[in-house]
Each structure stands twice: as C-alpha cells, then as structure tokens.
C-alpha cells in the first residue's frame, strides 16, 4: 500500500501539484462534455416532464377516459349515469386562447364540471375565501386561474381578461385564484379553468366535450366497469385507459428529443476522447518516471492503478464542474427550447423545472463511465513500459506502427457493418440500427486516425519543407512522430467536426426540402387563421360562418376551408385528420405527390371516388401506399377509405389522412375550420386581397390574415427556431474538440522540451520552432478536417437516409450547403492554428541550456 502511494505521488499527485494548470486542462475538457450532457438531459427531461405533467394534471385520478372521434356529445354523457353508483365522472373541454392583454401569450382553457372535479382532479381554491363569494364563481363567463399566472399578468379577482379564441375576441372575468397544484399544473400553469359551458362557448365546442374522465370507487371492478361503459357508448365513442394521453404527450416531444440525444452522445464521445487524450499524454510524458519506478520494483498493477486513479479523478472533478455548468447551460437551453417546443408541438406547453435529480445522475454516470473507459487503454499502455529501455520516448510509436494494418482491417469491417445496418428496418418504430451504424462509423474513425496522422505527415512533408523550410520539415516530423497522442486529438476533433458537418448538411437539407414543400403545397394566395399572438402557431380554430364572409369579398376566386384535428384509426392509434376542399386542390394543386403524379388530377379523382390522400409519415408509419386502405374512427363509427395518393408533408409526424371537406362534414359533422386558404382572381394581388379580407373580417373575427409569402416565411422561421438549439450545441462540440487539440499540443510541447532544447542548441531559431508547432497544429486540423469530411458524409447519409425517415417518416432531398460547410471547416482550421499558439510559445521559450541539462 505504501508502495502504491509512492507510485501515485510520483506519477500523479506530484506532477499535478507542480503543474496545476496542465492537470486542470483535461478536467475542463471533461467538465465541458459533462456539462453538455447534463444540460441536454435537463432540458430534455424538463420538456417531457412538462408534457407528462400537463397530461397527468388533466387526467387526475381517472381510471378511464371516454373519448370520441369528434369529442363526446353531451347527450352521450347521459349513458354514463350508472357510474354514480360505483364512482364518478367529469367531463372536460380543452383548448387554447391568445391573451389580448398586450403579452400575446397563449393560455390553455379547461372547461370542467366544478363539482365533479373533487373526485377526479385536484383543484385548490386560494381565493375568494367566503362561501358566498365562492358561489359567485359558478356564474357564466367566470374563470379561475393559478395564482402565479394571475400575479405575472397583474390579474386579480374581478379583472376582465381579454382573449381571442375560436376566431373571436371576447372577455372573461377572474372569479378565483387557484393554488398551483392538481389541474392548475396543466400547461405549466398558464391556464384558465372555467365551466364546461363557458369553455364550450369560448372554444366553439358547444354541444360536446373533449373527454369524460371516470374514477371508480375503491373496490369496484375496473374491468366490469370498463366493459359496461363500452357497451353503453354509441358508435364513434370509446373508453380508454387514462394513461394513454400521457404516453402520447411523451411521444410529441420525440422529434425534439432525438435532436438533443444525437448531439448529447456526440459531446459525450468527444469528452471521452479528451479524457483518453489527457491520460495518454500523461502516460507518454511520464514514461521515464514509469521506467524508473518499474526498475525500483513497482508492479504493473500499481502503475495501472495510478493512471486509472488519475483518469477517474480527472473524470470526477470534471463531472463535478460539469454538473454545475450543466445547470447553467440547461437554463439557457430551456429558454431557447421552450420557443421551439411550444411553437411546434403544443402552443401552450411550457417548460417545467421539475425532476432535476435524474439528469444529474445521468450526467455523473456518463462522466464517470466515459472517463473510466477512456482511461483503460492508456493505463494499460503504461503497464507495458519496460523497466529500463524506456528512458527515451519513441519505442511505443514503433509498437503502434506495427498495429496499423489490423487497425485498417477493423475499420473497414466496421464501415461495412455500418453499411449493412443502414439498410435494416427500424426496430419498434425507432432507428436503433441506424444509430448503431453511426456508432460504427465513429469506431472506424477512431481506428483509422493514426493511419491518417501518419499519412498526413508523410504526404505533406515535401510540401511543407518547400514552403517553410526547416520549420515545415520539423512540423511534419513532430506531427508524425507523436502518433499516438496526435491520433487521439485528431479523432476527437474529426468526430466533433464530422458530426457538425453532418448536422449542418441534414438541417440544410431539411430546410430546403421544407422550403420546396411549402412553396408547392401552400398554393393559396391569402390565408386566414385564428389570431395566434406571440406563438406564431395555430391556436384554436374558426367558426364556419367565416367562410361565407371570406367568399363574399371582391377579388376572391376560390376558398378552401381547411380543417386539421386529432383523430385515430380504427384500432385507436392516434393520427391527424385533415379536410380540404378537393375542388380547390384540383384547381390550384396541393402538396406534391411522392410518385410524381399530378396532384390536381389526383385530388379530382379522389373527390369523385370518395377516396383519401395520406401524408408520407402516415404511409411509412402504417406501411401503406396508393391503392391500400386507410381507416378512421368517425362519430359514425369506423370507416375505411382507399388511398388515392401519398403526399409529402412535414406538419405531423403521426401521419395525416386528408379527406375532401364534403366527405369530412358528412362523417364528422364538424363545421369548424382550422384555417382558410383563399385564391385571388387573376389580376388581384395577394397584398390587395389581404387588405380587403382584413377589412371585411375586422371587428367580427379575431384572425391573422397573411399572404402566401408571409406564411412561407413564418414556416421557415419556426423551422429555424426549432433548430436553434442544434446550432448552439454544434458550436459547443467544436469548441470542446479544439480545446482537445490545444491540450494535446501543450502536452507534447512540454514533453519535447529536450528536443526543442537540442534543436535550439543545434541552431534552430525561436521563430522556426514556434512556426513548426503552429504548423503541426494546423496539420492536425487539416488531417482532422479530411477525416471529418469523410465521416461527416457518412453521418449525413445515415441521418438523412436512415434515421430521419425511420424516426418521423420524413424524407429529405439531400443538399450540401457548401458555403456553410466551408465556413465551419475554415473556422475549425483557424481554431486549430490558434490552438498551436500557446504550445508554440512554450516550445519557443525553451532554454536550450536548461533543457539539455535535464538530459
């Protein structure tokens, strides 16, 4: 034990005390990696948690929920009367509105049966306190709101809240304040609770509710009750376990989670390489000490343990700092993320800060595990240092050189396996094998980078020698000479840069495809949508009466009342149903069909034959194509339709079934409209028509009227906001890996003090040595870039061709944004040059006499 302590102090704690900055560098590296992982998990978890919490708050204690294709008609509730003997039930109407108090915030509206709430959902009234005042809450048009929400907006009891909802501007009165618990936690507390009738009126849902929650008394048979409910329900209604909504809510954020997870694992990998880098540098640097210790009788195990302890200590310290940094980062990410999730998935969803424990543990585990794994190889390497002959560096390099051939073979095998896996189908709806292929590319990259380093050194030797003379020759010698160390740094940078390049390419391809899709599918000249406030997404819907108003405006050639709503197929799987006037589609065209047929003719034929169009995600999810059958639960019971075509769509990753409006009205009896597309007469400009429509609707409806051009811009803006986080994280990954290069070079500069001293003694100038180190850094950057371009191409191919289509059913036309890629690459090259500055200065500052005297 005493011996081990000696070994530890000689190899780890001693050097650490003497050179604290150098010991700190890998800690910073791990900290950044862990911080990124922690931040991502915090953000990720908060998002999911907020969705779940919202779903839980709404579901309350309910055992079942009765839902219908078009809500639950009020008269169907009558059939549940028998339940009072064995439990209770509570109807709920839900929707959202825009606050017109100047904030433009989106607020959820929940219409409840106050009295039934106690049994089903918790709702705690803070004010008013007296019975008589409480009784006043029961009057129509009165809302309850969480106390935090009220104070944020300056609302108090009796305040009038201006809202626009369901295409109409209106006001409600604050009747009471709720504690932020139970139902009030739905939508992050941005919520107005009112009675079913008031909510129905506000949201244009009179005559039906969205769901009825059922709670059974303890001791009553859930199965029997469920069967009895199912038996009594009319066609079009079904009884389901209450948990399903929470599951669906979790699924909503999947696209978003994917985005973060991919980047999170990337940063973690880079972090691992940094730890490996740090430890292997310290092994290389301390070869003489190891040899000395070994000859003094230290065992291999104690050498291994010393470096393992060092790696783990670095990991632990880094993890600790990383956790703190992760919390800070998460806060920043959350505010960015809330914009993306809110706008795309649920207009009124909000990020909750709940559940910080698990992400902390996850990040700690990631930090500890990755530094442990990273330490294994270099520590094992250290044990192989023989006692005497290792007083000089270089011998391991020869060992490594011999191993390059099997490495190349293993890399080739990994790539071939990746190619095979990329052809595989998704497992349980998730592209696990696609991710495995990405991991294999990473492995291949790690295997191949020593070869790349050597090849880089060999191929640039002549060029650099001609350009920079002795400095150039020195640079290639340095670079190729420290193969192991440089290979690790190059791998980390190549991985980070490769992923970044792939992400840039993927996002650019998505954006371009979405842009093209928006252009071809948004054919109408002017759009009328419910007022959406700040969110920019669709909030609520519009009454049918708006359609004739719009039709009567001079200059309008055709009007397409579009309806989009949640629905499910015959077996209850959630999807989106859309309705559009196929006559207008037949005239103006719609979203492009995947098989390239004319969307106009297809729409016309589908209308005649009462067939449907389905979106690409639908086709992928249900494995259907043209000529197959799509099923829907309708208020008239389940219905099947022949699929007339598959169109490109990015609005719903659940998949959409698009019906002609007349067929939809016939089956769903729902006249409300989600948005109205308007075609202008020839010679009428979109701006002109928008002005006229605005004037015609002014004062009657609370709507946003936009021209096609504006709407396209809005869609792309939402797209960009969604990927804002991605960009921020790309930056982090690159910063981390450039730091890795700096770390590696500082290490080697210090280690090569003797060489520098010798070179200086032999007549090399300070400038030459500095240039050589700078060139070495640049060389590392160039080799990493070459590797990154190759790996990035593979990553991009997997992301665009496998992972995205398998995750969301979206296919993209690949697009290589040369400009942005070049910018990223030059940024990294500049950064790696900069990474050579400090080691360059250290190298140049070497005092020849002192360095030689060490000899």
């Amino acid at each position: 034990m005493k011996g081990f302590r000696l070994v530890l102090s000689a190899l780890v704690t001693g050097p650490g005390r003497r050179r604290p900055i150098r010991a700190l560098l890998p800690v910073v590296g791990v900290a950044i990696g862990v911080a990124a992982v922690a931040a991502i998990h915090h953000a990720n978890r908060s998002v999911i948690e907020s969705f779940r919490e919202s779903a839980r708050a709404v579901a309350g204690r309910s055992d079942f929920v009765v839902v219908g294709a078009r809500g639950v008609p009020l008269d169907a509730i009558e059939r549940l009367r028998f339940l009072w003997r064995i439990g209770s039930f509570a109807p709920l109407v839900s929707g959202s509105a825009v606050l017109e108090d100047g904030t433009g915030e989106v607020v959820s509206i929940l219409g409840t049966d106050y009295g039934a709430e106690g049994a089903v959902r918790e709702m705690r009234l803070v004010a008013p306190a007296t019975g008589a005042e409480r009784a006043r809450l029961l009057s129509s048009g009165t809302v309850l709101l969480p106390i935090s929400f009220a104070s944020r907006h300056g609302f108090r009891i009796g305040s009038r809240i201006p809202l626009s909802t369901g295409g109409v501007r209106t006001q409600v009165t604050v009747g009471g304040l709720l504690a932020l618990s139970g139902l009030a936690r739905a939508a992050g507390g941005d919520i107005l609770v009112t009675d079913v009738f008031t909510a129905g009126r506000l949201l244009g849902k009179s005559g039906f509710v969205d769901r009825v929650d059922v709670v059974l008394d303890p001791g009553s048979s859930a199965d029997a009750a469920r069967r009895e409910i199912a038996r009594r329900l009319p066609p079009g209604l079904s009884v389901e376990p209450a948990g399903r909504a929470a599951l669906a809510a979790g699924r909503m954020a999947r696209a978003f989670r994917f985005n973060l997870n991919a980047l999170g694992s990337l940063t973690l990998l880079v972090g691992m390489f940094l730890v490996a880098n740090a430890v292997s540098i310290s092994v290389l640097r301390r070869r003489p000490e190891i040899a000395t210790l070994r000859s003094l009788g230290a065992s291999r195990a104690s050498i291994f343990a010393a470096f393992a302890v060092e790696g783990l200590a670095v990991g632990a310290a880094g993890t600790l700092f990383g956790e703190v940094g992760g919390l800070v980062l998460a806060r920043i990410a959350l505010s960015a993320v809330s914009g993306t999730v809110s706008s795309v998935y649920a207009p009124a969803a909000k990020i909750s800060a709940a559940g910080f424990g698990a992400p902390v543990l996850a990040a700690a585990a990631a930090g500890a595990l990755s530094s442990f794994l990273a330490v294994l190889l270099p520590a094992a390497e250290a044990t192989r240092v023989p006692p005497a002959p290792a007083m000089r560096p270089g011998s391991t390099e020869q060992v490594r050189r011999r191993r390059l051939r099997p490495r190349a073979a293993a890399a080739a095998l990994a790539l071939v396996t990746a190619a095979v896996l990329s052809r595989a189908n998704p497992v349980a709806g998730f592209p696990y094998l696609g991710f495995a292929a990405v991991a294999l590319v990473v492995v291949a990259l790690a295997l191949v980078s020593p070869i790349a380093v050597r090849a880089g050194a060999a191929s640039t030797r002549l060029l650099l020698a001609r350009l920079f003379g002795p400095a150039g020759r020195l640079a290639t010698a340095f670079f190729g000479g420290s193969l192991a160390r440089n290979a690790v740094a190059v791998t980390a940078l190549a991985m980070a840069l490769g992923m970044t390049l792939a992400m840039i390419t993927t996002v650019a391809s998505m954006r371009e495809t979405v842009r093209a899709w928006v252009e071809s599918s948004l054919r109408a000249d002017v759009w009328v949508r419910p007022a959406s406030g700040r969110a920019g997404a669709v909030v609520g819907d519009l009454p049918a009466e708006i359609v004739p108003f719009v039709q009567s405006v001079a200059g309008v050639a055709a009007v397409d009342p579009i309806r989009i709503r949640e629905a499910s197929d015959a077996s209850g799987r959630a999807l989106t149903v859309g309705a559009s006037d196929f006559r207008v589609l037949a005239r103006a065209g719609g979203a492009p069909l995947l098989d390239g047929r004319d969307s106009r003719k297809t729409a016309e034929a589908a209308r005649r034959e009462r067939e449907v169009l389905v979106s690409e995600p639908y086709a992928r999810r249900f494995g259907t194509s043209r000529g197959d059958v799509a099923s829907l639960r309708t208020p008239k019971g389940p219905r099947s339709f022949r699929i007339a075509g598959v169109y490109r769509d990015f609005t719903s990753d659940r998949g959409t079934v698009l019906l002609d409006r007349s067929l939809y009205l016939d089956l769903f009896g729902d006249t409300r409209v989600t948005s109205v597309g308007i075609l202008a007469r020839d010679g009428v400009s979109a701006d002109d028509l928008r002005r006229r429509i605005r004037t015609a609707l002014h004062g009657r409806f609370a709507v946003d009227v936009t021209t096609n051009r504006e709407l396209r811009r809005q869609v792309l803006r939402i797209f960009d906001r969604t990927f804002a986080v991605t960009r921020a994280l790309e930056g982090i990954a690159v910063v981390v890996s450039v730091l890795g290069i700096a770390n590696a070079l500082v290490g080697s500069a210090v280690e090569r003090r003797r060489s520098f001293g010798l070179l200086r003694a032999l007549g090399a100038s300070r400038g030459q040595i500095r240039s050589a180190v700078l060139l070495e850094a640049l060389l590392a950057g160039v080799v990493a870039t070459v590797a990154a371009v190759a790996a990035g191409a593979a990553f991009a191919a997997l992301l665009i061709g496998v992972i995205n289509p398998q995750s969301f059913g979206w296919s993209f036309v690949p697009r290589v944004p040369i400009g942005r890629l070049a910018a990223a690459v030059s940024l990294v090259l500049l950064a790696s040059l900069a990474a050579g500055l400090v080691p360059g200065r250290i190298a140049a500052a070497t005092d020849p006499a002192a360095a030689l005297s060490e000899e």
Partner: protein
Amino acid sequence: MKWIRAVAFAALLPAAPPVTFPRDHGAHPEVPVEWWYYTGHLSDGAGRSYGFQLTFFRVRDVHLAHFAWTDVSRRKFRYVEKTHLGLPGIASAIEEGLDVSNEDWSARQGPAGAHVLTASGPDGELELTLTPVKAPVLHGENGLSRKGAGPREFSRYVSITRLAARGSLARGTRREPLSGTAWFDHEWGSGVLPAGAVGWDWFALQLDDGSELMLYRMRKPDGSATAFSSGTVVPPRGAAVHVAWSDVRLAESAHWTSPRSRARYPAAWRIAVASIGLDVEIEPLLPDQELETSASTGVTYWEGACRVKGTRSGRPIAGRAYVELTGYAGKDVPGTAF
C-alpha cells in the same frame, strides 16, 4: 325610468301565468333560481325517529343538492352536498314534470302522483315514496310570493304541505323500513334577496289536527320582519288561507351558537297566529342541524327537525316542524350569491 318599470310590473302582476300540475313540478329554466325542497319526519320499525332534508337547487346552469339526515334517537346530524353543471346524466331537471337529479340522487314523478326520492349519505341510501295527502298550494297573493318591493323580488312558490312517506334506508345489507310525513316546497324566481333584508326564517309546521302552517319571515338587520314576510295556513280540508305578518307574533326564547361557524342561531320559538287561534312553542329535536355548504351553495344555514307543542283555540295541540334559518353566519347569505 324606474317608475315606468314599476308600473309596468304592477300591471303585469295579475297576469302571472296560472300554475298547472304536473307541468309546474318540472323545471322553469326561464328564471335563474329554482329549488325543490323535501323535508320530513320518519320513524323506523324500532321506534327510532329521524328527520330528513333533500334539496335540489338550480342556479342557472349550476345544479346543487343537499341531503341532511337527523338521527334523533342517536342524536346525530350529518349532511352531504353536491354541485354540478346541468349536464345530462350528471345533474338535470326536465321541464315537463318532476324529474330532477344530481348524480344518483333524484326526485321523480311516481305512479298516482307520488314523488319518488333517492339520496345517499354516510348513513345509507334513502329511498322514499311520498304520496300527497293534500293538493299543491300556491303561496302568496295572486300566486306570487313577494319577497320585496322591487320588480324582480318575487317568486312562484308551491308546496305540498303533507305527503305520506314510506320507504327505507339501506346500509350495506341492512334495510331499515321507514314511514312518516313529508313536506314538499318548490320555488322558482329571480332569487334576489330583497334590498334591506339580511336573511330569512322559514317554518313548516305539520299539526296533529291535520292542518299545516307555513311562515316566512324576511329579516331586517335588526332582526325584525320586513313587510314582505307572510304565511299560509292549510286546513285539514278546504282551501289554503294567506296569513298576513300582522297576524303573526314570533318570539325567540333560546339561542345556540355553532362551534364551527360561530353563528348564533335562535333555538326555540313561540309563535302565535291570532286568526286561527294558534299559540305554540317550537324546539329543535337536535340543537346542531347546521349545514356549512362550502362545496355547493357556499351558504351556511341551519335547517332542522323540530317538535311543536301548544294550544289551538284553547285545546292542546302538538306536531312536527322543519325550520330553516339563513343569514346568521356572517356574510354567507343566500341570494346575494347569484
């Protein structure tokens, strides 16, 4: 312009539509406030006596219900309340006749004009069939029960002052047969507590000679009756007679303070109605029959079973009563709420 409304209203007064049954046992959604009120005295086979109150309120779209059970022998008083929106299968009242329900409590038209009640509480599930012994009585002059001078300060108020009750209280597997006498009130109107009033005292006396007396005192802040207090006497046979408040002497002879609401309620009365030679004392069967209905109407009130003892035209007379006392618990006054 207020006087024009008052004149117009006065002109409208005699035109109050006639009340017909069974239609008018049904709901009147054209007015904001309506209630169906059942009270009664029951006894089981073992000679134990009980009082019950089952009330269905409707305030616009909101339906409330109270069920109170007074176990006189065991000196226990318990109540349950419910609040729901008027939604089918949850809480409703039809217009065509008596069919009002809240969850699984209900009052429905049975065979031969009977009222069938169901309600459940901690003491069990009550099922009662109430057979009217007398015809419905329309209180007030010209069929309007005036509550104040204002144009909206009136209601339509119908009572069946004596119904024969028969039924059971089921608890688990045990089923207690019950029989007794009940009283039914059905009132609908604006529900506005008239200006200057703080609450009301309501007395429903069922006397052993087969007659009944309803008295209604609208209280001013000083405790005295407003001009719109009145009553109705229903003789064993024949038509009901309106009782003017000037004919009534009402004195409180004891008080009880609620340990929960701190409200101080009168707890014994002496009532004399000169025109019918009645002079009786009224005493609660249990002092604590207070309802704090924070989960429904939000009103705290006392409504309880009482015994009646005294003389009529010099001869001893006894009976049963239900008394309702509102406006004693601070600001929690019914009527102001809506």
